[in-house]
């Protein structure tokens, strides 16, 4: 329970760090270029995320809206934050596009099944070893072959499920969540990645 409690707080913290960097760069109020400035942002974000106000912390309010931030969310948060911290991308825009596409298409089937829009319960297959696990293993092999940088994320799904790092007992909750779906959809459309990725630098 101890580890789960702390792992849950990681994504809210990443999100707040990301928001602070974005506000800084978009408003031109300050640029966090130096290492000490970046460390200060990380610490300030931790305080802002974890210190309770009106009884709950910002992380706990975010977890009230989305009680399970998946490993996919954590990965996307890290991918978006990495260039701001280390001045180089963790994933190429092409790989980011593929990852966002996966984060939109996979939950579309899962959510529509769970919410009763298709008469088959896919979510139930995530509680224990099933054909879906074999399919995910196959997808992981394909990812390793075709998009190697994304393979770390796909390996992290199953590794964190085996270690039960999140509160949900369902494998699908390690792969995706509602917030990740909306965030990835926003990235696909708002950032215009489909148009950009062909001429953006490849990693």
């Amino acid at each position, binding site marked *: 329970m101890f580890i789960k409690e702390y792992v849950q707080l990681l994504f809210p913290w990443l999100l707040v760090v990301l928001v602070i960097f974005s506000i800084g760069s978009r408003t031109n109020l300050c640029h966090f270029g130096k290492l000490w400035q970046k460390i200060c942002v990380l610490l300030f974000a931790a305080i802002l995320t974890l210190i309770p106000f009106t009884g709950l912390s910002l992380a706990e*309010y975010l977890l009230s809206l989305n009680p399970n931030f998946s490993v996919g969310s954590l990965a996307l948060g890290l991918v978006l934050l990495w260039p701001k911290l280390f001045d180089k991308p963790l994933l190429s825009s092409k790989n980011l596009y593929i990852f966002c596409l996966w984060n939109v298409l996979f939950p579309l089937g899962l959510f529509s099944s769970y919410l*009763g829009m298709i*008469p088959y319960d896919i979510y139930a297959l995530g509680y224990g070893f099933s054909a879906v696990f074999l399919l995910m*293993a196959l997808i992981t092999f394909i990812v390793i072959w075709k998009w190697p940088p994304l393979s770390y994320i796909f390996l992290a799904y199953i590794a964190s499920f085996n270690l039960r790092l999140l509160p949900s007992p369902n494998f699908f909750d390690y792969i*995706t969540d509602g917030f990740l779906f909306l965030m990835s959809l926003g990235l696909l459309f708002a950032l215009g990645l489909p148009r950009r990725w062909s001429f953006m630098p490849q990693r």
Partner: protein
Amino acid sequence: MKKWLAVPLVIFLYAVPFYQDYWSDPRQKWPNLRITEIAPPLDDRREAPYFAEHFVNQARPGVMCHVSSIAPAGKDKLICTWYAGSREGARDVAIYAAFFQERTKTWTEPQVLLDPRQSSQELRRWVRKVGNAVVINDQQGGLWLFYASMLGGWSTTSLNYKVSRDEGRTWSPSQKLILSPFFNLTNNVKNKGVNLSQGAYLLPMYHEFLHKFSQVLLFRPEMANPPYEVRRLTHSGKAIQPALVPQDDRNLAAFFRNAAGQGKSYILQAKSADVGQTWSGLSDTSLPHPDAGFDMIRLANGAILGAVNHAFQDRSDLTLVLSPDEGKTWKILHVLEHEPGKEYAYPSLTRSQETYHLTYTYERKRIKHVVFNEAWIKELINHVH
């Protein structure tokens, strides 16, 4: 990453859940579980028919109460929970509890078991409202309270639980259940569960976000962080608030509130032959239904006893009905309430050592408690015949 290294790593990582599911303690697997409590044992003693009525709480001006749940809480004691506040779904709604002493036949003064503030503090999450609560027994003397918490309306409910190891005197802090991949929406409870082997139990639930359907939660309370899993109970219709009735150690019947709300509707029924893992399609029973909650229980003689609103239009009557043939036919046994314009709803049935207990919402002002024994039911059956 080197591809030659990745291949055995993937195989190893996916072999872990495979090993956990197929080699480590197969008794824990859902298909290997058995229903342990089917019907109470037949009592050959010649008892006098017994029937009594009580009120669990007193009416208070401007306070409505609703959705009671009753369960044994140790020897000669029962616990009843319900929610009360200014109106359904209001922020001042709290979950109350009171205890019934079978020897003295009296109810204790109701106490607030949980309000949104306490729930928020225990869960470390923002909780604006609390709603339906169900209290059930496990097989080790533990009492489990499953309750709904909300940020907005009923479609934003998620489920939480508390456990008491001392017959309801003290309760553990609330724990949240993650039951849905989409913002954990929407799961709610109404009726009691069914005990299984290995200390596990089934809890009927329902979902009402975009579509209305029923689910069943398999909960294994013996472990420190109790593992759980959810299965869909219905795939069509608008069947919610299931009442589970065990038939034997593998077969279950489920009866559903029909929330279609169009014209004359009937209580729906489905069956499972594998301890609730998979379910048949829905069929109508012959019980008329005004889209309201109800409960059912199996009697010692094998018949199913139901407490239902036996009408198409409203909840102005509450009736005990009996099916001797697994829900194929039903007979009216006794009309408990009938007052046009009033509401008698959301019954909850349980059995203590010798008697059956029924609680229900009485005109939205109080929770009424009815006690009867098997001899009283036998007398009614003879009278009906």
